[in-house]
């Protein structure tokens, strides 16, 4: 009974994705029925210029925002773990509120800000938005690792005359590297997959993959989208496996 129910839920979770992947290799144009194995939809993707542009945009935004969000998030986690400062409690609360905050509200609030300071919508605005929604996740991931950290080691380093910065680089950083990399991979995935916030903060001439898929789906299903979604799923899969492996290591 237990096994049956568990398999039922796993089937529920994976069946649509499995169907998507299978159809992405189907030679038939109409997704019903199997007409043999083929890479034709993947080849079609490669001929699709605007899709390739969108893919490149997505990768650039995801990569740059992940680097910056990870840097800021790591410093933020360190601040929460190590220091007492004015407004620390508010800062801590803000991090959790940001994680739970409705995406649509974050999207429109940033849109209003960008219009307000007349920053043209495009790469920069996407970058700012993605850093903002990824950073709290990095903070939480790194903080979890820091909380398992022996504070005595830091004290020892200090007693031996290490500066704050040196303690960070030589003692803390090597210990929390797995969490930092995990935070980076999660940011990469979050940014790569985001629809709602990006919908508001990107301009008409800077398309990214999820939004491209969204507009393609609205116009009617094309088999190329199966291939594109399969690629996006595989990307996420690799990121998750890698980050879970890092988080799990030495716990």
């Amino acid at each position, binding site marked *: 009974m237990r096994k049956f129910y568990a398999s039922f839920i796993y089937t*529920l979770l994976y069946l649509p994705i499995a169907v998507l992947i299978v159809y992405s290799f189907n030679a038939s144009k109409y997704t019903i029925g199997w007409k043999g194995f083929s890479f034709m939809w993947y080849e079609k993707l490669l001929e699709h210029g605007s899709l390739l542009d969108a893919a490149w945009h997505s990768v650039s935004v995801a990569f740059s925002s992940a680097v910056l969000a990870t840097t800021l998030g790591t410093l933020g986690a360190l601040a929460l773990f190590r220091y007492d400062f004015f407004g620390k409690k508010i800062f801590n609360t803000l991090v959790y509120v940001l994680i739970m905050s*409705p995406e649509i*509200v974050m999207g429109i609030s940033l849109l209003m800000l960008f219009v*307000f300071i007349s920053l043209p919508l495009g790469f920069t605005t996407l970058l700012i938005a993605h850093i903002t929604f990824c950073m709290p996740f990095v903070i939480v991931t790194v903080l979890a690792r820091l909380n398992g950290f022996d504070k005595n080691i830091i004290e020892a380093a200090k007693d031996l005359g290490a500066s704050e910065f040196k303690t960070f680089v030589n003692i803390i950083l090597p210990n929390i590297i797995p969490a930092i990399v995990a935070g980076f991979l999660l940011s990469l995935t979050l940014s790569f997959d985001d629809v709602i916030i990006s*919908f508001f903060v990107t301009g008409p001439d800077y398309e990214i993959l*999820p939004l491209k898929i969204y507009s393609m789906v*609205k116009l009617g299903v094309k088999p190329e989208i199966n291939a594109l979604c399969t690629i996006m799923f595989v990307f*996420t*899969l690799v990121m*998750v496996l890698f980050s879970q492996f890092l988080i799990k290591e030495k716990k």
Partner: protein
Amino acid sequence: MNRLSLFAKLSISLVVFWLILFALFPNLLVIGISFLTKSESDFFTFAFSTESYTKLLNPVYLSVFLDSLYLAFITTVMTLILAYPFAYIIATVPKKYKFLLLLLVIIPFWTSSLVRTYALIAILKTKGLLNAFLLSLGLINEPLQIMYTEVAVFIGMVYTLLPFMILPLYVSIEKIDFKLVEAAKDLGASKLNIFKTIIIPLSLPGIIAGSTLVFLPALGMFFIPDILGGAKELIVGSFIRNQFLLFRDWPFGSAASVILLIIMFIMLAFLAKSQKIESSRDKA
């Protein structure tokens, strides 16, 4: 407070500055603009009014909110019913299987909800897998129209948000001290009674956390109803989007967003309270 080094000062101000500029300030902007007046030529004019909020009380808009709350509520209840036994099973399997079983939940958790919504189409459409399956079993004589109905939206919401319910439930059920269950059994408690008086209360923080994680996104989501429901019914998400991108009525759209923020804070207060109870119990 001890004196902070330059490094500490720099890193704290950088992060705090970022959050104030790009998280706090934009949200205050939303609240502020919701009290201004709509303008025909511009997005808004600087004149205080509560007009946007009174406009929300119009039955047409009120029903948008009620429909969305209904959609989010039913989605939450359905995911809870589906996820609870599953989370319980995962939390109680032998340790060596746990990591793998959990990993299989985390993968869809991180997979784009757009990709997963899109994946559902092949199953739900008239010539899709579900209809083919039901036809071959002889349960139905002609294909059911599922796509572009309310049912499709519910299926899409539950399917997409299920992992958000499973994970917090798992975390809190795993923490339960099963010696209590043993003791209750020895004292002759029935299975139902054990479930009602031990398991449910002890997993309450997980139930609240999971419900928050499902309810809030379900409330603000606009692309699942758009893609699977054909956007026949207006929900808050698409309503807010339209106010900003179509009608250019910033104060009205902001007012609707403020309502969403208020709902979020109510749910977060519940969450914080339940976690406080849990951590005080952990210490005891």
